[in-house]
């Protein structure tokens, strides 16, 4: 049951009607969904949420689309796991992993695309589109298929086969001869004279609201309170700002008592404009040309970078730049301790966590959540050199020689 009042410019506060638009005509600021919170407060409760479906749509009062006709392949309500093994390794007694790789297309992007595609149908679009390098491609293609919409997913032709095939299986991928910037430019031109719902362009105000569900779930799954620390992988910064927004909406609506969560930015050395701005006390991240193995974080000019730095400062959080060499280490550490195979972005998160503990930013008993936003199966190349296997002949002797022998010797 949507309670949307308007779209409102995050910068100058001008209101706009609920349409597929995303930029303020006056000051070029981003538009954000503005809700009637008084109306929401009348009916929203822990019980009303718990009575809802086991997807992001249990929070539909705080989402900009109706769950009655949601494009739903099961996004959300992913496991929040107590990470005692990893905690022991790092010296933390109250560590949790939010495993968003457990979403239908194996990343948090299902949350945002479920909302964007539902809204696209409400707006009578018949085509849903995106430019992507991976996770968003799969999520958009899958939701487009479920919705029965024409789907146009544009990706660079030289992407890893896992990402290409993982999106193309849904039937609607266009490979573009060019790099990611070329793909983006093409999509902007295509969008100018076609009535398409580009999930991360003209649908962005609605799309990005889907990420708030991660914040809501953390609070609900922890037993209706906000954690003391959250570590978030940052690309555009949208997820970072929306997790914060979700926790704060819950607090202001009385669903939880308070939201004093310290928000921590995690970025890889090869693309760290937001963390760098935090460290250097700059309000505006300076754009960079990305060169990182964490490709899902490779946004050199992050749209919500400014807001992310501001939130990290406001909450007493931090910004961490993880050396590229520690990304695979972080992936291995999580895999070997908790049985979770994350993508490179998760490796950045785990290595950030390790650094924050060493620096004393996170105390041993403080409740901490690390966000794992995608699966390692999409970025196998990243760990090819750091994982070892043995090969034997199909004989016991060979097993004894190679495996047992290796173990003993």
């Amino acid at each position, binding site marked *: 049951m949507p309670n949307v009042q308007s779209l409102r410019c995050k*910068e100058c506060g001008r209101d706009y009607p609920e349409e597929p638009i995303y930029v303020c005509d006056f*000051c070029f600021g981003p538009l954000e969904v503005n809700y009637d919170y008084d109306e929401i407060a009348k009916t929203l409760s822990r019980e009303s949420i718990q009575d809802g479906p086991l997807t992001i749509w249990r929070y539909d009062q705080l989402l900009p689309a109706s769950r009655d006709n949601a494009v739903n392949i099961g996004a959300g309500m992913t496991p929040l796991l107590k990470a005692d093994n990893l905690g022991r390794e790092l010296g933390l007694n109250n560590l949790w992993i939010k495993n968003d790789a457990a979403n239908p297309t194996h990343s948090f992007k299902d949350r945002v695309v479920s909302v964007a595609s539902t809204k696209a149908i409400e707006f009578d679009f018949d085509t849903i589109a995106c*430019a992507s390098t991976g996770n968003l491609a799969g999520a958009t293609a899958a939701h487009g298929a479920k919705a029965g919409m024409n789907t146009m997913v544009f990706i660079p032709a030289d992407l890893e086969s896992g990402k290409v095939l993982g999106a193309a299986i849904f039937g609607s991928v266009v490979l573009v001869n060019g790099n990611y910037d070329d793909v983006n430019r093409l999509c902007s031109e295509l969008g100018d004279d076609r009535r398409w719902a580009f999930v991360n362009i003209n649908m962005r105000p609605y799309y990005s609201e889907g990420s708030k569900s991660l914040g809501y779930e953390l609070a609900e799954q922890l037993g209706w309170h906000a954690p003391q620390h959250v570590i978030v992988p940052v690309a555009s910064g949208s997820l970072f700002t929306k997790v914060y927004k979700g926790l704060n909406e819950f607090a202001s609506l009385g669903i939880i008592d308070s939201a004093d969560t310290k928000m921590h930015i995690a970025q890889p050395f090869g693309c760290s404009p937001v963390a760098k701005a935090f460290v250097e006390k700059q309000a505006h991240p*300076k754009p960079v040309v990305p060169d990182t193995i964490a490709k899902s974080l490779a946004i050199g000019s992050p*749209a919500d970078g400014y807001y992310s730095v501001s939130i990290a400062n406001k909450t007493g959080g931090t910004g961490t730049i993880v050396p590229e060499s520690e990304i695979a280490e972080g992936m291995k550490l999580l895999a070997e301790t908790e049985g979770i195979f994350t993508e490179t972005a998760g490796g950045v998160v785990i290595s950030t966590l390790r650094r924050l503990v060493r620096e004393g930013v996170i105390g041993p008993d403080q409740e901490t959540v690390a966000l794992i936003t995608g699966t390692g199966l999409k970025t196998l190349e990243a760990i090819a050199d750091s994982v070892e296997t043995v090969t034997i002949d199909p004989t016991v002797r060979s097993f004894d020689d190679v495996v047992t022998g290796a173990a003993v010797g």
Partner: protein
Amino acid sequence: MAVTVKIPTPLRKLTNGETSVDTDGSTIGAIVDALELVYPGMKERLVDDSGELRHFVNIYLNGEDVRYLDGLASAVADRDELSIVPAVAGGLK
């Protein structure tokens, strides 16, 4: 200092459709003030109430983002080229 300023599509209503205009000023801030005199309404589109460049307005001085120079205080030389470019507020990806 005579400089040429490139005007983006959304602001061309203020310049009567001109895509670039010539003006004078020794700093970016002075040029913004000079533009306001000739094209009333321009300044509030570029600068916020506290006098800072709006977060989603980029001004490039000979291709350099002035935010990473001295902002509105950045010095401008004769025949420099200025471009006003709205940030892609929505971003991509």
